[in-house]
């Protein structure tokens, strides 16, 4: 495959503290370990990056927990591939934002900041083992805006242990006050390998979770946000281009520990094991040759997550097939509609159920 890859993702596997809900690949930040990681990543970037990317996303973990000097080095490594970049995002935690970091971001043309806010309730933040308070968030966002970095996304969590509708309502009000153009919404999923999972904490009742989702959806839409993807809201024109790449099932290159990528019919996930990563070449936890059927299903699965849906004509061309004939069961689902040549799921909340009808036996 020689087609150009448009999206690059780099995973920074360090955090200052470990949040209780998280099971991503990460370690508590350690200067010398981060040094070794940077050295290893440099080789991985040199070996794999061949394109000028339209979108770059540095996620984690917490990229901002690197020292300023290490952050500089990381961004220097990526610089050669940023000539045509339109959206360049970095994830930060509110407490690690300061003028020095922001100066580094600007120097390297980072133009979008994703902040892990999660909640405006300090008690809930503590129960998640987050280090920041909501006032840190407000200060950080003010600072970003002052520096002209106003393409900001905040992460918001719901269905949290100890959270009820009143707390959620206050949180949503607080988030609206931040006046940011993009909000990502996560319901807490208790992962087996997270601290919550190990402590045996269980999910909130399904009905409460649905009530919360519906409340957030309604309130954000009333306040001018577009619910453009199952778990994402934005002001007009502020869709995450990088994430749209995933949802349109574009190819993307993922680098570093635990990162995933998809290039043509190859979908992979890098090892989550630090030692194996640091000592070896490219060891992958998952390295799949996707069949045409796999690719078609995954494409549908991802595209139905957005309000824009799936371009049926493009799909038929890409996979040389007839979607409407092949997926008649899916098309008969009461929450599937076709509008202007796009296949659209009209009920995000039941997307799994809808997708089951698109799976072949």
């Amino acid at each position, binding site marked *: 495959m020689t087609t150009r890859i448009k999206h690059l993702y780099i995973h920074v596997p360090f955090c200052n503290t470990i949040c209780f809900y998280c099971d991503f690949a990460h370690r508590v930040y350690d200067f010398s370990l981060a040094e070794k990681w940077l050295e290893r990543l440099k080789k991985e970037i040199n070996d794999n990056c061949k394109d000028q990317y339209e979108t770059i996303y540095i996620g984690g973990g917490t990229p901002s927990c690197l020292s300023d000097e290490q952050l500089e080095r990381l961004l220097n490594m990526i610089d050669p591939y940023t000539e045509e970049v339109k959206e360049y995002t970095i994830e930060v935690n509110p407490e690690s934002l300061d003028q020095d970091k922001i100066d580094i971001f600007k120097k390297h043309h980072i133009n979008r900041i994703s902040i892990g806010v999660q909640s405006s309730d300090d008690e809930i933040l503590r129960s998640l083992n987050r280090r920041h308070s909501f006032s840190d968030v407000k200060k950080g966002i003010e600072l970003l805006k002052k520096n002209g970095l106003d393409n900001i996304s905040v992460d918001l969590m719901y269905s949290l242990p100890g959270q009820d509708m009143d707390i959620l309502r206050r949180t949503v009000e607080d988030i609206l006050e931040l006046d940011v153009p993009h909000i990502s919404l996560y319901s807490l999923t208790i992962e087996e390998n997270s601290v919550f999972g190990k402590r045996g904490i269980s999910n909130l009742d399904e009905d409460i*979770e649905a009530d919360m989702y519906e409340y957030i959806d309604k309130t954000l839409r009333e306040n001018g946000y577009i619910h453009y993807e199952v778990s994402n809201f934005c002001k007009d024109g502020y869709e995450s281009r990088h994430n749209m790449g995933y949802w349109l099932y574009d190819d993307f290159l993922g680098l570093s520990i635990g990162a995933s990528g998809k290039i043509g019919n190859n979908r992979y996930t890098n090892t989550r094991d630090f030692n194996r990563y640091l000592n070896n070449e490219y060891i992958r936890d998952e390295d799949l040759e996707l069949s045409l059927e796999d690719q078609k299903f995954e494409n549908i699965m991802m595209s139905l997550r957005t309000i824009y849906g799936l371009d049926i004509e493009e799909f038929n061309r890409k996979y040389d097939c007839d979607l409407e004939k092949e997926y008649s069961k899916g098309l008969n689902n009461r929450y599937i509609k076709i509008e202007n040549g796009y296949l659209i799921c009209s009920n995000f909340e*039941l997307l799994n159920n809808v997708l089951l009808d698109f799976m072949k036996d």
Partner: protein
Amino acid sequence: MKNLDRNRTRNFSIIAHIDHGKSTLADRILELTETVSKREMQDQILDSLDLERERGITIKLNVVQLKYHAKDGQDYIFHLIDTPGHVDFSYEVSRSLAACDGAILVVDASQGIEAQTLANTYLALDNDLEILPVINKIDLPSADIERTKKEIEDVIGLDCSYAPCISAKTGLNVEDVLEGIVKYLPAPKGEASDPLKALVFDSYYDSYRGVVVFVCIKDGSVKVGDHILFMQSNKEYEVTEVGVKTPGEMKKDRLEAGEVGYICASIKSIQDIHIGDTITLKDDPCKEALPGYRKMNPMVYCGMYPTDNNKYNDLRDALEKLQLNDSSLTFEPESSKALGFGFRLGFLGLLHMEVVQERLEREYNLNLIATAPSVIYKVTMTDGSVRYIDNPSMMPEANVIEMIEEPYVKASIMVPNEYIGPIMQLSQDKRGIYKDMAYLDENRNQLIYEMPLSEIIFEYFDKLKSVSRGYASLDYELIGYRRSNLVKMDILINGEVIDALSIIVHRDFAYNRGQAITVKLKEILPKQQFEIPIQAAIGNKVLARTNIKSLRKDVLAKCYGGDISRKKKLLEKQREGKKRMKAVGSVEIPQEAFMAVLALDDDKN
């Protein structure tokens, strides 16, 4: 190999109530006789089915040859036939007893004799076996050796003066059991020089060797190359292999009178083998066949259907092979509007049914849906004709029925005095008719009730155990059909009658059962994209109704690049779950829903 010395051979079974330590004693005997080395030893070694080990019960009989050097200085050959203890498997017990000359009756010294102790002892006496009582678990603080001996003497009438008192768990005095076998159990009576007469008491299917037939050689001998005749099926085969179990299969040149072993003869046709048949030599047949076994009639029926309709033939093959190993199982094809094509299976009891389903799923890799168990009803129609109905959905319309009769059993319950009250209450609630109470000793009584078999399979046994904290034991035998006020209750899901969920219920209990079932189904049925009403009805009259709310939210919120794999795996898992469900109309019904009709009345809270 030296000819077998029949006088120094003993063929015996161990019989006991469930949990009285039968398999543990067998383990100790295998160790003491060094049949199995310490290295190979594991608990319940004769229980070769995974299911037996998991549940800690014996389901299948198993046979093993042992060598014992007795205190009289002589070497003895023992054939030990391990047998199940549960009431459902008394057929297995009676089969193994027919291959024996003696039996060891194991009684737990902390429990005393129980319902199955009696039942199994009577089976042994019916087969003219010598019985050696063994008092087990004497290491337990609650053991009462003298009381247990007295119970055995008073209730069964066996002399306990020479009964070994042992702990199979610790191995204490187990050697006394081996000496007791030598001294008190008789040697087999047959003659090696007479024409071959061998009893077929078990078999299983081996894909390389064909049917492997377990036999007890009563007279004569058999060797590789012999042409044998199955007297009942009148089929001939040439013997390809003979051997004994030690407990692994060990090939031998020949088997002769007094030995218990196996025969292979490239038998591919499963239908030729009947448990209880007699094998003889084609050219030198014995005069008459052995009496064989009394055919056991199934007491409990249920439908079994492959979740995948294409597996119907696989299920039939599996049933044929399983029947070879479990001759008390019966089956015939049936079809259901809800479930498609399957079979109606007949069992000796509920545990038997559970075991068969698990064996079919594990050993034959099938996904099955079992409908709730039912007894067989005798229905007299208004025109005077009589029908037997083993499937509730086949019950004729009420207006053409003159009367319905159901099977009744005589239930014998042994119970410590303090639980007599609750058990009498329970038995009465289950339509039991009090018949008798007999004192076993100052602490325990035997209660006799007559009650409908359907109540016993519904929940009587479970409740008996819970109200007596496990101390009551139950045995029952069929005593005939009696008229009852029974009605057919249908279950409707999304407005459709699901035939496989119909049950026959006593009119007085219909309302409560309907409530319990609909509530249970509400828990079991997965939410779907629309609201689903569940109703229980007799004819057009709805007795109970509940609704399953529609599914509101199932989507995994986050899904970025790295989540594709995770998300897809989740969906695949959901799809696999769906495969184990039956789509009935527009509703997906999981396997366990078909058992929901067994929901206990108490569950509704």
